[in-house]
Structure formats: structure tokens, C-alpha cells
């Protein structure tokens, strides 16, 4: 089969935002399909505008298209109007590059960045004419794979996925390609053998190769069916980002998308140890990109794309060694050539950061965002987000005095040990922030964004019972009432959606049936509030005889087998348990980039090291347990051969 474009084109006159479906971005490719190349369809199961900027997907798109034995195209979930037009016209799920049907690919690979897209995965498969359950697929069907942060608990989608990539994809896609290529050459005959082989690749989890046993509701064990299939699947991690300067040709969409700018990843991993943050935990250790490479990726990227904005991305960009030099250099370089805006998403909360921000945002100082996450120092110790009130107020004062008018603050509610006094602390912080702003400008305002906390696998909070919908609602309304009439504007995430996220986040294999029911009842695009309906989920749970509270609000015990115990992010379970207990004792934990290793397991088990250019903590960083890192600690970064775990200071 070749292109479906002639069948797609007439549909586009009738749908909203037809340019979602045409491809043609600068940087996109029209790869040639040949028998000798394993064809990958990389799918982001949400709208084009949300999915296109995804860097992970773009990186793999380039890497796979550079190889002789593979090729890759992209696809995004069609919006409801397009889906119904497609179903009416019998047009299957297609790629946007050469408009080929999903079934024409050997691999259909989903990027899973959020749990609420799970039903869209089923919908994309079904629309593509691919059986949604892995057991029903035969030799004609593509191999269905997933990767992305959510796959660190792959169980809720285990029934639907042939294989799952745990961790970073840059290297493992080559091995998967080779296995798929061999299978393709052999006439795609023995699917079971292929899956068995995939299961032996490090970082690849094949759900069907494992038997799951329960003891009533409790999970008893997840056991491999073959001796050469690992009992525990370890994540993949690239040792050095310098080897992977991707994307080299970042896609430039024709329509507006989120993060519509050049994005250059400056480091991966984070060791600040915020206990609620799954991204920080599962991407350890820290690997910085060499400054020179960052610079050339920025300069080349701007030249190729024509963008006038570049973001230096990471989980905490101000932590990059020598960030001030890098920023100053880029600002000066770009000043002569045109008008390029630089942005640093994910900023720390401190005055240093505001200094950086004002360096780069000489104009257009509209809003600046900080994430203190919790309303009291006590609770911030519990979650190990060690920002003092002084830090926050100094940062905010700096921001308003430098000309910013609006400050955005992000908080979580429903955190472990949170009491009403902690919650109300959010309102107090908000009011003080506005007061500080008023000293500088009458126009000062603050937006307070509150999300309900969802405990995530592979974090010290994986044992914590999430707050119920009613409890989250109560806390949010309490805040709303307290901020009524104030210049601080409160925004919150729907606690019902938070609850469903909780079902999927720590769900086991049995949740797959629930996801399937919700999808069958029409529940797609659950991330979109206009399409989200809690009752679809609660009635699906009921129909499967599952108690939602058992999954969501129940505290887990130390001895419990967790559904993701056979997936390893490198963090030892006893380290996480220890850290959970430290957390409950309100003890913080220092950042192991600049203080001795406390042996969480990642570096030691995987023979990895932090790749950091500077042995000194960046100026202004206050993460530590009462230690003052503001001038930088003189702690060498390289790991010592013998290390003793360092207990958190008390």
C-alpha cells in the first residue's frame, strides 16, 4: 500500500484545523519504504499540537531515519471530528509524513508521557485496524511498542503492548530494529519467537513473557516464563549526552503548537531528590551536554528552523554547570544577529535564577514561574523541595523589581502529612507575594496553580495513599475561599481527573480491562476536560469488580509486591523505603551532585556517573539539608570507589 492522501484530502475540507493532518514540517522526512528497512510508526497519542514538540519522539524519528535498516514516520491522535470522518470514509489511522496506513508499518510505537492518554492508545490501534489486545495479533499485524515516562509502570497497558521500552530510547531502538528486521526477512512468521527475543534485549519488557499471580486483590508475583527472560527489566540510560546531539533538525510545525520554539536539551536527570517527582527519580544520574555542543545546537538550530526563540530545557535548567556563562554568551551572540529570545523553563526558586531570567528576558517581561510545591517549610522538608520562605520572597521581590508584573506559583496539594495549616500556607504565601509585588507596581498579580498530588511509581511516595476526590476538593475550596477578593488568582486541576490519573499511575494489569471499557464507552481524549467523565471510569471499575479506593487512596505496606517491582529505574526499593521514612520524619536529603553519594542505586548498579562540567554547585542553589550551598560546596563530583551512604542530616 502507498499513500492514503487522495482519500484523506476530501475529509480535510470538513474538519477543524486540517493542517494537523498534512505533515510537511520543516525537518520532516519522506522515508523510502523497502523490504530491507524496519518501518516504525512513532505515535503521540494526543493532538498534533501537544504531540509534535515531543523531543523524545523527534530524537527517535531522526535516529531511525539515519539508519539504513530502519525508517520512521509520525502520527498523532486525530481529533474527534476527524476520527468520525475517517471512520465514515473507512480511512485508517495514518502517518502524517507519507500518509500511509498504520498497518503498513512493522512497528507502531507510542510515546506515553501522561496516563490520561491511555484510552487514546487503544483508539489509535483500533482506528488503524490493529487488534487492540496483544494476544489477538498475528503475523500480519505490526508489533506494538511503547516508551516514555509512563512505561516505568507498564502494567495498566500490559495487555495491549507487545513490548515496552524502559528508559531512554536512543540506543535500544537499534537492537529492536535488528530483531524486527530479522523477523521481517524470515517472513514475519514466528511472532512468539520475536517477542521472546525482544524480551532478552536490555531495557525491553515484553508483558506476555511474564506470568502474574494474585492473592485475592494483592499481587503475589510477576515471573518470567523463560529462563533467559530477566526477572527484573532494567532501564536504559545513555552514558553521555554528547554522543546524541539530537534532534539535529527539529521539526518546525506549520501551525501553532505548544512549546513552539527551538528546544535544546542541556542536561538529563536530576538529583535534587524532590520526593514527589518521578521524572527526577527515573532519569538519574545527571548528564550534562557539553557547553560547546549546546551552543552549536542553538546556533545551527536557529539557522535551520528560522525560530526566534530557543529554550534550554532540562528538569532544572539553572543547575547546569556554568549556566550564567552559557546564557551570557548566547545572549551576546544573538544580540548582533537578530532578535532571538532565550528561555529557561523549570527554574529554581531563588534570586540567582531571577538574575538569570532578567539577563535573558530583556524585553517582554510578562510572567515568571516558580514552583515551591508546598505551602509550609515543614511540608517542603517532607517532599524535599528545600526552598525557604526567604528564597521565595527574595526571588519574587527580584522579579517584580526587575519589571515582571505577574508571577506564577505552582503547588501540589494532597501531599503526605499535609495538614490544613500547610494547605493554608499556600494562600499565605500567595498573599505575601502579591504584597511584595505591590511595593513595586500597582499592576502586580500572581497566579496560583494547584494540582492534586498523584503518587508515582519509583519514588519514595509510591507507598502513599492519594487524597480522595472529596479531600482534594475540600482543600482547593478552602484555598479558593481564603483567596477570594485577593489579587492572587487561583487555578486548579480537576480532582476527578487526578483520581483517574491515580488509578492508572499505580494500577496493575487488571486495570487494562478498565481502560478498555472506558475506551469502548467512548472515553477518548481524557486529558481534555470537555471529554473527561469520571463516571466512565467508576462504572468500568465496578464492572471489573475492582475497588477504585484500593488502587488510589490506600497506603501500601513495606512488604507489598508493587506492580512495577519487576521494572527497575535503578533506585533500590530499600533506599526508597528509607527515604519515605526520612520524609515522614521531615528530614531533607542533599543533592548528590555536590555532596557525597548516598547510594540510591542508579550509578552503582549501572556503572554510570554524573556527567557534570563543574564540581561546584551553582551559585544561589539552596538545596541541602540546612547546609548552605549558596557559595558552592567544594565537593568533587566523581564517584569514589568506596562510598558510604550518607544519612540525611537532622
Amino acid at each position: 500500500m502507498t499513500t492514503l492522501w487522495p482519500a484523506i484530502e476530501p475529509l480535510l475540507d470538513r474538519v477543524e484545523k486540517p493542517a494537523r493532518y498534512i505533515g510537511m514540517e520543516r525537518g520532516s522526512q519522506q522515508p523510502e519504504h523497502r523490504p530491507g528497512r524496519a518501518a516504525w510508526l512513532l505515535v503521540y497519542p494526543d493532538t498534533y499540537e501537544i504531540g509534535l514538540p515531543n523531543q523524545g519522539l523527534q530524537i527517535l524519528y531522526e535516529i531511525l531515519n539515519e539508519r539504513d535498516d530502519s525508517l520512521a514516520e509520525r502520527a498523532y491522535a486525530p481529533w474527534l471530528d476527524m476520527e468520525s470522518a475517517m471512520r465514515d470514509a473507512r480511512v485508517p489511522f495514518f502517518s502524517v509524513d507519507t500518509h500511509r496506513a498504520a498497518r503498513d508499518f512493522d512497528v507502531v510505537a507510542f510515546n506515553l508521557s501522561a496516563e490520561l492518554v491511555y484510552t487514546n492508545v487503544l483508539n489509535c490501534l483500533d482506528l488503524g485496524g490493529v487488534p487492540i489486545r496483544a494476544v489477538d495479533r498475528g503475523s500480519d499485524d505490526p508489533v506494538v511498542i511503547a516508551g516514555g515516562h509512563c512505561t516505568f509502570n507498564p502494567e495498566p497497558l500490559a495487555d495491549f503492548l507487545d513490548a515496552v521500552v524502559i528508559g531512554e530510547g536512543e540506543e535500544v531502538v537499534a537492537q529492536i530494529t535488528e530483531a524486527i528486521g530479522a523477523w521481517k526477512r524470515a517472513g514475519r512468521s514466528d511472532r512468539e519467537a520475536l517477542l521472546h527475543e525482544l524480551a532478552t534485549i536490555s531495557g525491553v519488557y515484553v508483558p506476555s513473557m511474564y506470568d502474574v499471580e494474585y492473592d485475592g486483590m494483592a499481587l503475589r508475583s510477576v515471573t518470567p516464563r523463560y529462563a533467559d527472560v530477566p526477572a527484573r527489566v532494567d532501564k536504559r540510560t545513555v552514558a553521555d549526552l554528547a554522543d546524541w546531539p539530537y534532534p539535529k533538525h527539529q521539526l518546525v510545525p506549520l501551525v501553532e503548537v505548544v512549546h513552539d520554539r527551538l528546544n535544546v536539551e542541556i542536561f538529563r536527570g536530576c538529583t535534587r531528590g524532590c520526593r514527589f517527582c518521578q521524572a527526577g527519580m527515573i532519569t538519574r544520574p545527571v548528564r550534562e551536554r557539553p557547553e560547546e555542543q549546546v551552543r552549536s545546537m542553538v546556533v545551527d538550530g536557529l539557522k535551520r528552523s528560522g525560530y526566534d526563540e530557543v529554550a534550554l530545557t532540562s528538569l532544572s535548567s539553572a543547575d547546569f554547570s556554568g549556566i550564567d556563562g552559557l546564557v551570557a554568551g548566547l545572549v551576546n551572540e544573538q544580540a548582533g544577529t537578530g532578535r532571538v529570545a532565550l528561555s529557561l523553563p523549570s527554574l529554581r526558586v531563588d534570586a540567582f535564577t531571577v538574575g538569570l531570567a532578567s539577563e535573558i528576558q530583556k524585553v517582554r517581561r510578562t510572567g515568571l514561574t516558580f514552583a515551591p510545591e508546598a505551602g509550609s517549610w515543614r511540608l517542603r522538608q517532607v517532599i524535599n523541595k528545600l526552598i525557604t520562605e526567604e528564597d521565595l520572597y527574595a526571588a519574587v521581590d527580584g522579579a517584580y523589581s526587575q519589571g515582571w508584573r505577574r508571577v506564577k506559583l505552582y503547588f501540589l496539594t494532597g501531599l503526605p502529612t499535609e495538614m490544613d495549616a500547610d494547605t493554608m500556607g499556600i494562600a499565605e504565601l500567595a498573599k505575601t507575594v502579591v504584597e511584595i509585588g505591590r511595593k513595586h507596581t500597582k499592576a502586580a498579580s500572581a497566579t496560583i496553580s494547584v494540582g492534586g498530588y498523584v503518587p508515582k511509581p519509583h519514588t519514595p511516595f509510591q507507598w502513599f495513599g492519594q487524597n480522595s476526590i472529596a479531600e482534594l476538593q475540600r482543600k482547593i475550596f478552602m484555598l479558593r475561599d481564603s483567596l477570594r477578593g485577593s489579587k492572587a488568582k487561583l487555578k486548579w486541576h480537576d480532582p476527578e481527573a487526578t483520581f483517574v490519573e491515580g488509578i492508572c499511575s499505580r494500577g496493575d494489569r487488571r486495570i487494562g480491562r478498565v481502560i478498555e471499557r472506558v475506551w469502548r464507552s467512548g472515553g477518548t481524549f481524557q486529558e481534555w476536560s470537555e471529554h473527561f467523565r469520571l463516571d466512565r471510569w467508576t462504572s468500568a471499575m465496578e464492572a471489573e469488580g475492582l475497588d477504585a479506593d484500593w488502587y488510589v487512596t490506600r497506603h501500601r505496606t513495606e512488604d507489598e509486591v508493587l506492580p512495577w517491582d519487576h521494572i527497575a529505574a535503578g533506585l533500590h526499593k530499600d533506599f526508597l523505603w528509607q527515604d519515605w521514612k526520612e520524609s515522614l520524619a521531615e528530614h531533607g536529603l542533599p543533592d548528590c551532585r555536590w555532596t557525597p553519594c548516598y547510594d540510591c542505586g542508579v550509578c552503582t548498579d549501572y556503572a554510570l556517573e554524573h556527567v557534570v562540567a563543574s564540581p561546584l554547585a551553582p551559585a544561589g542553589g539552596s538545596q541541602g539539608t540546612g547546609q548552605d550551598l549558596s557559595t558552592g560546596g567544594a565537593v568533587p563530583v566523581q564517584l569514589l570507589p568506596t562510598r558510604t551512604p550518607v544519612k540525611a542530616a537532622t
Partner: protein
Amino acid sequence: MRGDTGFPIRVRFSKHGKVRFISHRDIARAFERAFRIAELPLAFTLGFSPRPKVSFGLALSVGFESDAEYLDLELSTDVDVEPVAASLTAALPEGIDVTGVARIADRAPALQEAVSAVQYRFEIVVDDPEVAASRIDALLAAPDLVITRSRKGKQVVEDVRPAIRTLQPCGTTDRGVLLATELSTRPTGVRPGDLGTALGLPVGRVLRTHQWIERDGARLEPLEADPRSPATAPDGAETAGPHALQARAS
């Protein structure tokens, strides 16, 4: 103001194929990126957030193709415009081709005001061409053509008959007939979709073929309407052409 600090040029481009599905706004953004990729020396607006001085002509509906779209742009230096078409085309999405570039007079009137007529060729889906022909005759014979459309959220009723200058069949397609039309842009515009509605027949592919600037009884292609005179006196006083003078006077 235009011409204060730089050298205005007018660009003609086409929009064909898949890219017809992007909006006027998307086109504007694609051009802004293309100017940077092609490293054109742009003149910027003054002020807090400087923008390149670009102004687009009449918007083309999403889904329409065109042989004749225009934009005006101001450069900070007087570059040779000859290679600009090729370098912009290379920097633009496939299907958008720059087909002409001309220096224009400093005070050339803006495209949106200057263009007074547009021509389209469009497809009407119909089994029997005779049906189309008789409905066209009826439409043209009627004293008015009152349509209702929403403008800024309000329903407005307008007679668009005066804007229809010509409308006639000019060929057939596998689904129906091709019509050619010339429409005035003032006092109120009318679109091929409105004509389809009036004929009671679905509209297929639409191609804008021309835009015209009409002045003193002459019909001018926008690239040729307001040429900058080749000789510019060293003190900056131009020996401008008659149209530019007229524009300046108005």
C-alpha cells in the same frame, strides 16, 4: 511608517497542494521564519518588542489555493531583489513558492486597501453542467443576492450582487464544472463559498488566480502597481513614478 527607515519590497507567492490547509496566520509565521532562514535584512518596528515590518494582502480562506498572493516587506538595506525569490522559496514550506519580488515606492498604498478586484477559478460539484449554467444565468439576472453571514459574532444581511463582476463556466472536472469569476473587494467582499451557496451547489477546489489594483481606469498587477524608480538621488529625494506621487498626495 513604511519607508521611514528602509526599503519596501512586494512579494508575490503561490499556495498549492497540501499546504492549502494552513491559515493566513500560519502563512505569516512561515514567512517570518523564512525571512530569518534566508537572512533577509529586515527592518524592524521601534518600541518594546520590535517586529519585522511586514504587511499581508487579503486573506485567503483555509483550503483555497492561489497563484497570486502578496505581501509587503521592508528591508533595512537596499539588496538586490533578484535572488530573493529563490532563497525565500527554499526557506518556505513545500507548495508556497515566491514567484516575483519587486521594489516598491516608499509610500505605496497598503495591499489591503489597494487591491480592489480578485479572480478565482473554482469547481462546482454537479452531475449535469446544464444545471450549473442555468443557475448561473438566474443568479446573474437577479437584481440582488442577499446573504447572511456572521461578522464579529453578529449576523449581518448583505446584498453582494454588486460585487459579482463576472461568473461563467470555463471547463469541466471529473466531478462537475469549473467556474471563473471576478469579484470586487469593496464595499463588501464575496467569496466562492457564497456563490456556491447561492447556486445551491457544493464548491470543490478553489484557486485564486489574480488580484488587481485598479487606478485611473487601469488594471495593475500588484507587483507592477507602485514601482520604486530605479534612480534614487543621493540626498534621498526620489524621482518617483506617477502612481507613487499620487499615493503620496492622497
